[in-house]
Each structure stands twice: as structure tokens, then as C-alpha cells.
């Protein structure tokens, strides 16, 4: 038996006192269990992790984490310090679009069975500088990359057509200029 999961691109309703859009970057030991420690810091303090990107650093002893989080803004400073306090965390800093480059990527699978609609979908993808990375008679997968707002708009426009599913990487950030992240 197959299971159908309904998907939508609606944003969750804002919760009072909760703000999203904070991006933290962490440099951590590349070891089992490190993510568990970090996630507990957020869960305990009722923060939601909206996105999470983890990958091994150039030095394989370390990993780089980028977290998009939402929660009580008054607690953000606390959260950063609590994370920094973990023995496995080398450093933890907040980044804003002003001081860092933010990139996000989405894969969108759209039903597009030829004709006009197919052309329209291709135009939207092209407009956002995306690429089709898979193409069949009935569907295509588009890859769109940019800051999170751009990716949001692309998905919004594509949702006028039939989106089968989306998979998003979540934000990665890098400090601008010579400054290390």
C-alpha cells in the first residue's frame, strides 16, 4: 500500500513572540553525537530549527553547520552562548544578510505535459536562473539557487502549476570579505 503525503508551500502561521530568519553558523567537531547535543540546546528552549546544513570541513576533523532558526528573539543571545559552551563546538556566530552571503537551493518537480504550460514553466525557471536537471514526457525537475527570498518566489510562481514535490537544502552562509565565517 502506498501512502500519499499532501505537500504545500504555505508558510506556517506566525506564532506570537516568535521570530524566524536567524542564521547561525557553527564550526564543530566532526564526531557522532555532536548534532544531538546542539539540537537539544534548541529544543529545550522552544526554538525551531527551520533549516540545517551540515558538511565536513576542509579539515576533516571539523564540520560546518548552518542553522536557520526561529524562536523568542530575547533568547537568541542565550542560545548562541549555550551552543558555544558545548565542548564540541569550536565557535558559533549569528550572521545577517548584511555581513554574509546567504545561499539556498531547491529542486522542484513539476508536472508539465507538453504544450503551452510546459513552455511557461521553462520560462519561469529560466527567469530565476534555474536549470532543468531532469526532463520526462510528463514532468521535469528544476534546480533553482539564490538567497532564500528568491527561492521562495520561484516556488511561489511554480506553484501555479502542479508541483509534485520540492526538496530544499536550507541556507548556507559565508561571511563577506576576508572575514572568516
Amino acid at each position: 500500500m502506498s501512502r500519499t503525503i499532501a505537500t504545500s508551500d504555505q508558510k506556517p502561521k506566525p506564532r506570537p513572540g516568535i521570530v524566524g530568519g536567524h542564521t547561525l553558523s557553527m564550526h564543530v567537531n566532526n564526531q557522532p553525537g555532536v548534532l544531538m547535543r546542539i539540537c537539544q540546546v534548541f529544543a529545550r528552549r522552544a526554538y525551531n530549527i527551520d533549516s540545517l546544513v551540515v558538511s565536513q570541513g576542509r579539515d576533516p576533523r571539523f564540520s560546518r553547520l548552518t542553522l536557520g532558526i526561529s524562536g523568542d528573539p530575547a533568547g537568541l543571545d542565550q542560545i548562541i552562548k549555550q551552543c558555544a559552551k558545548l565542548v564540541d563546538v569550536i565557535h558559533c556566530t549569528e550572521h545577517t544578510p548584511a555581513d554574509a552571503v546567504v545561499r539556498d537551493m531547491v529542486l522542484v518537480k513539476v508536472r508539465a505535459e507538453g504544450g503551452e504550460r510546459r513552455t511557461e514553466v521553462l520560462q519561469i525557471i529560466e527567469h530565476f536562473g534555474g536549470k532543468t536537471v531532469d526532463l520526462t514526457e510528463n514532468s521535469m525537475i528544476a534546480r533553482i539557487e539564490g538567497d532564500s527570498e528568491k527561492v521562495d518566489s520561484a516556488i511561489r510562481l511554480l506553484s501555479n502549476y502542479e508541483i509534485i514535490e520540492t526538496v530544499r537544502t536550507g541556507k548556507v552562509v559565508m561571511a563577506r570579505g576576508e572575514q572568516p565565517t
Partner: protein
Amino acid sequence: MPKEQLDGAQALIKTLDELGIEYIFGYSGGAALPIFDALETVKSNIKFVLTRHEQGATHMADGYARATGKPAVVLVTSGPGAGNTITGIMTAQMDSVPMIVITGQQVTWMLGKDAFQEADIFGITIPVVKHNYLVRDTNDLPRIAREAHYIATTGRPGPVLIDVPKNVSQSPFAGELNAAIDLPGYQPDEAFDIDEESVEQAARLIAMSRRPVILAGHGAMIAGAEKELMHLATTLGCPVTNTLLGKGAFPETHALSLGMLGMHGTAYANKALCECDLILNVGSRFDDRIIGQADKFGANAKIIHIDIDPSEMNKMIRPDVQIVGDAKAALKLLSSHLKPLDTADWLAHLDGYKKKFPLSYKKQGGLRMQQVLDELFDLTKGKAIVTTDVGQHQMWAAQFYRSDASWNFISSGGAGTMGFGFPAAIGAQFARPKDIVVAVVGDGGFQMTLCELATAVVNKLPVIVLVLNNHYLGMVRQWQELFFDNRESGVDLDGNPDFAKLAEAYGATGLTLKRPADIRKRLEEALKARKKGPVVINAECIKTENVFPMIPAGAALESMLIEPPKHKMEKPVGST
């Protein structure tokens, strides 16, 4: 000659020995067998103490550490053995106590398969440790043991757990016994690099103050800042209040001492906090037990916060000046800026409060815990190590057994763990065999860990257990009386054994105390009898006495009740 072949467990014990570990408290079991065997096969100075429950082992290690500042090791088996240590680890973490907990574990290839006595103790304990390890390579054991010791004892101390699968401890060791620690994310030395600008800012605020109060916490003691604290207080002419865990950092019998503040603190300490114009917090984390309602705390005062843990800054209270770092180093820097303050009026004013609202109790109408503790203080001249359990007796012990030196008052503050007092006393007695150690416990809490009587008896420890027996879970009953129309629910300890007889059954001395007139005599008997081993005094106390002063949980310090309220009380907003 070939080097002697060690296995992982032997390498581990050798490392612990080199680290100066004196005691391992523990309980054996299958997954820990290689480590227990290494205790026999490796020549070391480590003494092993078999407890009667793993929780007891953790509290003993805790008591040992709080009596010396040095860590002890807890060694238990996997699964249930490891599980039984959680309360003790949490207790140590809440109170910043160094401890190394070593748990046996299933063999690595069975992890994640629900194998016999497998428990993910690494995952389970993440929220209650300073750091923890699951060892996967035998050769890592010495490095990890060294790291655990370093992490447990430096910076803000805390418990570190090392989970050791049986194949890891049992395999041949081919690593480096002196392997260096490798902790790029842990830099406790930064605590000694204090921002001088903030110290100068603090000095400027202090110089302007006319009604200052120093708030001394556990951190002052851990940093060994007692002398600097004394210098600070006496140079400024500044009164000092202390937290429960800060008892002894500044002598409570000193004229400048206001004793303990907070929920059951002295009236004059709390009043001083309400009326002061400056709070200089040295190593306290502004716990909710002492600040009450956060937004009203120190509302008219400038606040300076010295804490080694940056995450304590702005957590409960937003200070005017933050000094992140070691308390001793910070006070040393501060001392070069200090000039005497004109506090004569302020001190006289507070002396008025001391006279008007002293800690007191009635001497008629039965045996009161306060009086027993007061006389214990007189008889031992305040020199005993007092450990407490949790409840009314704990608060009275804090009030009446004034502490003049650090490391002498041992109590579970942050966690409020019942069952802590007696095993902690055992640990303290092992640590300081020549000192008088008295466990002040309630009839409720004592029954949670009294199986350790056997541990105390076989080791002939001269520990005194003073059971302040009100046949109630007294502190909870007090809340029910005050806030729940005296509806008693789940607080009657009907069925208590005769603690004196129970002690005798274990081979300890059992004494009974019923009348106020006999207090001194009975305590003297206990001090004599302890030479033969543990002594339990069953003190039959008034059942329904309440602890005052009291600040209802979550309420501002201003709402302190100095005596029983005449009107019905609202339910408190804060927890317990």
C-alpha cells in the same frame, strides 16, 4: 624486555591513577568486568568503594568533590547500572561539581540492537553532563580519561561521563598512555583573561554606592576567592550575603555577613537586597530561589555580575556590568581600584533588621529541628562538615548551622535531590577522615538512600546521621498547609521504621532523641560513639512546624513572609 601488555581497562586505571584519582565509588556488573578486573591487576593508589546502589555512588563522588574540590570517579555497569546514576549526575551538573562517571557498555558490534543491558547512556545523559564520550577505540582510553578529568575540573566544573564498551576495555592496548588532550572547542584558560574595561566600570559603580551588598555564590568558593572576598568586603565596609552553595565563601559569623538570602534566607539579607543600591554578585548564577520575581530583583540597584560562564550573563538578570571570568582573578583586578565606602548608616540600618528579625524559634512545646541544629552548631563550634538532604531540615540547617569556611556545607541546591545527604556525607568522610561529618537528613530523604548504611559500616566511617524525623514530607506538607488549604496529599510518612533500631541492624550505633533537654547529651554521645563507626540519631521532632522566612516561589523578595501568614495565601506562580 618486551613492554608489559596492557588491556584497555588497565590503561584506563593507570591513567586515572596518574591523574591523582583517590577514590572510585561504584557497583559491578557484566559490561564493566574488565575494568573491575583491572582494579585488581593494576598497582595503583586508587581505593575502590562498593556502594549499595549506583545513585549512592554518584552522591558519594559528589560529596567527596564538594569536600575537597577534587573529583572522584564513579564506576558502574551498563543498562540499569548506568541508568541509576542519572539523578546523581544531574545533581552534580546543576551544582557545578566535578565528577567522572565511567559506565560499562555492551560490545560495540551489538550497539543499537537492543542487546542485553544495552542503554544509550551517551544519548540519555547529554542534557545532564558537561561533556560525555562513547569510546570506540581502545587506544583512545587514556586521552579520553585525561580530557574528562580536564573538562570536569576546569572552567565551570561539572560531571563528565565515559561509556566504555566491553570489547574496548578488554582489547589489547597499543596506544600512548601519555596521549595529549585534544580539545579545540574548550578553552577554560580564557577565564583568566579578564576584560579590564569592565572591571574599571564595576569599580566606578562601586565607588558611587552607599548601600552596596556583595552576593557570594558557589563560584567564589570554586575559584578559591575567599581571601579576595574578605578583602573586598572589609575594605569597602560592604555587607555580604551568600547563596546556599556559597555558604562558607565568606564567614557567616562575621559582623558583615547577612547569612543566606532567598526563599528561606534571613529577613535581613532579603531586606538588604530590596533596599540596596548596588549588588555585586561574585560567582552566583542568580538562581530563581534567590531572585524570586526576576523583573523586580534589584530594580533600584546597579548590578555587577562576575561569572566564569558567559552563558550565565543576561540569563536571569541583565546586569549593568558583566565580568566574565574566574572570580578570584576578577576580584584581584578589582581590588586595586577599591576605596572604603561610606556605609556606616547602611550597616547600622541593617543591624537594626538583624535585631528586629533574627532567626529564632520557640524552645517550648517539643523538639524542634532548629534547636537541634543550633545546638549542633554550638557543640561542634561550627567546625563540622554538614551535608544535608532536601526539605525543611535542609533550610533550617542552612539557617542555623552557620558556615565559616568553604567546603564544609554540602547540599543539593540546583537539583534539590532527596537522597543526596547521607551518601554525600560518606563521600565527604572518605575525603576528610579526620573531620566530623554530620548528615542532616529528613525521614523522607534518608529512606531513599539509607541502604548505604552498609557502605558506611563496612568502611567503619565515623559519620553521624542526624535524622530530623517529623514523620512527614515536611516541606511539601508546609506548602499544602500554606497554599492548598492544609489539604494533605501524599505527604504522610506513616510506616517509618525505627531509625535507631534500623541502624543497629546494620551494625551502626542507633540513638534516639525526643526531648529538647536531651539534645546536647545525645549529640555528645554520638560524637563519642562515632569512633566505633557510623551513628544514626533518630530525632523525633514536632510534626507540623514550618520554615520561615519564606518567599513564595516566583514572588518578589518584597513579599517575604517573616512569620506564618494570618490570611489565606494565593498559590505561588513559580514552581516548588
